[in-house]
């Protein structure tokens, strides 16, 4: 909730800009640029989900479904109708935003965790549709030959080029979201998180704000889905299952939900764990995630970004005990 300065953003941007170059020089991490493309895609989702959880105090267990809708709308419209991928991405955002509005409006009017219930059910239904509507989605076999992206005729045909595209998106969204957090809208969101009653009687339209943030988070997931589809050129339903929604929640919990950097750190760590460092665990991977979630909720309620503050407090207390 601290003010986020320009310096951390600039440093982070510097890190991202030189990343592919460094990874290209060091053979041991040669594939990290590819993994970082996925980190960027997931960051788009976690930034929105973090805003929803940490600021509006709501949980969505259906982000994988919005991610999937983005991917499938892009895939279907480009492969079956040959439409321009950027246009399809935009249509996907409209479709996802509308669906999120329809799912969110009734459940966010009620107090309590109805949104978690509604999105859980929604996620399961959408997953079934991806599997069963074979004439549209290809069913469990998925959809292939999804075209890549190009900008003004310039093909984004290498991992490095796509890396910069995805992270360009991430930075635009990051700055937009930070602007929101640091404005009166962000203040209203924090107020809603502390006391809906007081926020309401101060003239804040609480249910409208909650729906707005939910729709925003769904739109970001949809964008991520489109970017994913055009990067891999292939999608199938298993990417968008309930477990992925839970994985996203673990990312937020690990990084910290009260700070936008938490969403990015969490996405980074969990993605590298699952793509690179957890291979030997195979099906026991799930246990590792369970353990992470357990440890974080017990010992690190504010996630990794809250760790320095916790250590500092511990240190001060030690000092005063001496």
């Amino acid at each position, binding site marked *: *909730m601290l003010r986020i300065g320009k310096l951390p953003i600039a440093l982070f941007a510097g890190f991202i800009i030189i990343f592919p170059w460094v990874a290209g020089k060091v053979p041991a991490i040669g594939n990290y640029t590819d993994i970082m493309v996925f980190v960027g895609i997931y960051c788009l989702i976690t930034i929105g989900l973090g805003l929803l959880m940490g600021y509006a105090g709501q949980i969505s267990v259906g982000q994988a479904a919005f991610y999937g809708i983005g991917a499938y709308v892009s895939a279907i419209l480009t492969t079956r109708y040959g439409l321009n991928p950027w246009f399809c991405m935009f249509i996907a955002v409209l479709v996802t935003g509308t669906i999120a509005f329809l799912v969110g409006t009734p459940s966010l009017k009620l107090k309590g965790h109805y949104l978690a219930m509604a999105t859980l059910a929604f996620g399961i239904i959408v997953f079934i549709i991806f599997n069963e509507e074979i004439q549209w989605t290809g069913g469990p076999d998925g959809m292939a030959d999804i075209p890549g992206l190009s900008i003004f005729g310039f093909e984004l045909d290498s991992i490095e080029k796509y890396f910069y595209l995805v992270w360009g998106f991430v930075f635009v969204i990051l700055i*937009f*979201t930070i*602007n*929101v957090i640091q*404005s*009166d*809208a*962000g*203040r*209203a969101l*924090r*107020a809603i998180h*502390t*006391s809906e*009653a*007081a*926020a*309401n*009687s*101060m*003239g*804040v*339209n*609480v249910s409208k704000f909650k729906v*707005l943030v939910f729709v*925003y988070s769904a739109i970001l997931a949809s964008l991520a889905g489109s970017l994913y589809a055009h990067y891999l050129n292939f999608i199938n339903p298993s990417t968008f299952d309930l477990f992925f929604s839970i994985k996203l929640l673990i990312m937020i919990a690990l990084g910290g939900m009260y700070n936008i950097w938490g969403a990015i750190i969490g996405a980074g760590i969990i993605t590298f764990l699952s793509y690179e460092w957890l291979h030997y665990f195979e099906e026991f991977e799930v246990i590792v995630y369970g353990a992470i979630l357990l440890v974080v909720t017990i010992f690190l309620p504010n996630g990794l970004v809250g760790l320095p503050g916790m250590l500092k407090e511990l240190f001060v207390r030690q000092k005063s005990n001496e």
Partner: protein
Amino acid sequence: MNDTTAENILEVQGVVMAFGGLMALFKPDFKVKRGIIKAIIGPNGAGKTTLFNIITGFFTPTEGTVRFKGRSIKKFKTHEIAARGISRTFQTVELFGNMTVLENVMLGCHTRVPTSFMASGFRLPGAKRKEEEMRDRALNILKFIGLADKFEEPADNLPLGQQKMLEIGRALATEPELICLDEPAAGLNETETYVASSLIKAINAKGITVLLVEHDMKVIMNISDEIVVLNYGQKIAEGTPEAIRDNSTVIEAYLGSEA
């Protein structure tokens, strides 16, 4: 007495509020003249807070109407009622604890300054000026309630007396015509209570109508123009402080409830 709506800012008529089998309110009809301080007193559980929750749109009454400036508030949600000019404080402090004192008051400015997600996200030119305008207004209010030097403190760090003042300040930021104060002096010591009643008088002097729920009879007798007495959700008396002091039904209700 002349009963035109221009004179009465608030009219409570035939209001019944049932929670299951419990009648929290049963037709305690009364009117509030614009510009006065009207107190609502009564033993615990008499229905005072419930009445505030109805006036501010948190509860929809089982029966009856509340009219603000001559119009029924039935159709309006809480935030819309706030925008129309009714503000409130809470019996148990409901501040935004982890926000600063200044931010708490700035939040009250939401009724007067429209908020847009898009305009904020793209940091459109108006956004910065709007923020500064809100800040100035909030600082002025903090000066008025005597908390200007604490503007950067998290609200949770303030002592109870100042938290109660801050809640009033936050309510003032919405620029209300009617302010509903739910036990503003509860838990305060004598000095703090004196500060609170002076503040309420100062608010009233600005032309804001005050509806005051309070247990401290000294405060009530000193600052209110009229008093309504509730008992078990019903109105048992209404009048000037002098008339209420000598009313035998009131004395009985109070003594009865404490015996």
